[in-house]
């Protein structure tokens, strides 16, 4: 391959890699943040179902406990992922709110995990999950509304 062409290709490849790095991992666009918030809403929805089962003593303690542990870990993982990422300039505030929500979710799950047989805690956590889901849905809307 003639030298000038090789250099051109290497230059193009470097530019591509640089562009990818600039826009890629570590950076959080509004769209990506929105998806993260949606998954938080989904986790809260599941938590609500689980907590309602505990509240009405209609579930098995081990099931509620193990599910809370798994889902709580997922919420925690989401919180860390969002916290580590660098948000786009117009998503800073929303990102921080999302991290707070994820943390709240993780705490609620932790409580349900510990008190997996306690109906009172089940009601408490259920109400908490509903609140988190509502806040997450509102955040999702506000992220989607502004261009």
């Amino acid at each position: 391959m003639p030298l000038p062409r090789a250099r051109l290709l290497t230059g193009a490849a470097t530019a591509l890699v640089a562009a990818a790095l600039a826009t890629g991992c570590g950076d959080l666009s509004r769209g990506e943040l929105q998806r993260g918030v949606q998954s938080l809403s989904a986790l809260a929805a599941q938590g609500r179902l689980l907590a309602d089962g505990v509240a009405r003593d209609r579930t098995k303690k081990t099931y509620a406990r193990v599910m809370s542990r798994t889902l709580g870990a997922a919420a925690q993982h989401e919180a860390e992922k969002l916290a580590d990422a660098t948000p786009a300039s117009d998503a800073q505030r929303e990102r921080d709110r999302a991290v707070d929500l994820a943390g709240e979710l993780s705490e609620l799950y932790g409580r349900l995990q510990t008190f997996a047989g306690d109906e009172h805690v089940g009601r408490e956590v259920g109400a908490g999950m509903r609140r988190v889901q509502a806040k997450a849905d509102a955040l999702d809307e506000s992220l989607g509304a502004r261009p």
Partner: protein
Amino acid sequence: MKTIGKIALGIIAAIGGFLDIGDLVFNTQAGATFRFDLLWAVVLGTIGIAVYAEMCGRVAAVSGRPVFDVIRMRLGFSTGLVALVASTFVNLLTVGAELGGLALILELLFDTTYSMFVILAFFLLIVIVAGLPFGGLERLFGYGGLLLFVFVATAIHQEPDWTAVGNGFIPSIKWDPTYLYFVVGVFSAALMPYEVHFYSSGAIEERWTKRNLKENRLNAMFGYGIGGILACALIVVSGQLFHPLGVDPTDLGTVALPAQDAFGETGLLLALGGMLFAIGGATIDSSFAGAYNVAQFLGWEWGRYRGPRKAPRFTIAWLLFLALGVVLAESGINPVDITEYSVVFSVVALPFTYLPLILIARDRTFMGEHANGRLASVLGWGYFAVIIVLAIAAIPLLLATNGGGG
């Protein structure tokens, strides 16, 4: 000559054994993401496995040849080897996924560490296989799987919009990568080749002859057909409960949640129990299928009916599949993720084990008067076309949708 009663019991066992972790995961996710829109894909896959299984069962009963005997004979050594390697790879993933799923269910029921349950499940399965005759294995796990009818009861209890459910059975194509990915996934989870390979070798283990052809057809039509109802129920209950809430089921335990929501602790236990038997049976079927395929291709003695003394290499191969499944299940990868790969790759490998079978099934030199009739031919070739399309689309869709996650 088996009585109608015995055949009916066999069909009932087949119904209970229809689902495995792939069906449980993909159908629940399909319902949560697309509500009832993918019901038609379940039906398509269910008819597909009935067609494939009927052909393989017929070939085994008439010619005495199980699937990988046909493959080596029809494709020759080198092309057949490609089919064997692909099939072995998929079977390894499947055993790992099912074994991991088994441990997950045990963890949900008894809350001791997952890792321990993987090892426990490994030894428990060996004891069960060593202790029960071949037919007994199928009956134990098959009847246990019938507990999954709690999902049918849940679907009825939820009182969904039945018109919307009905519309889900009408095939529709949306040019959305995630939708298409689930079409492939739901279809492929229903048409897992290991199940048919196991069925084909099982026919020879049970010493089938031409007199079992009617039973073969009934197994295919009703055993798998009614089993498909269970798969549909999964989509309905998930579509009804999870879709409006936006729940994204990424855990195996989530599959049981609709039953708990409808019927409380009883529903939960029935669901988890059914899942335990279904996945347990699938672990045995997939590990056996892995051993059958290797032994048959290489010409070793094989079969549970021979026993470990007469078929030692086959026995060791089976134990190796289980052991490697343990390694995979303990690897830290979520069994649900392993399941996704096993289901997607299995449809990619499917043409290699499907084509030789249909070529033999229609060949009068081997099948005599029992070669494919018009219906079997139309269905057989029709499904081959569908399988080719899905096999080509599977991996691009997996990559494009990041595993259905988007």
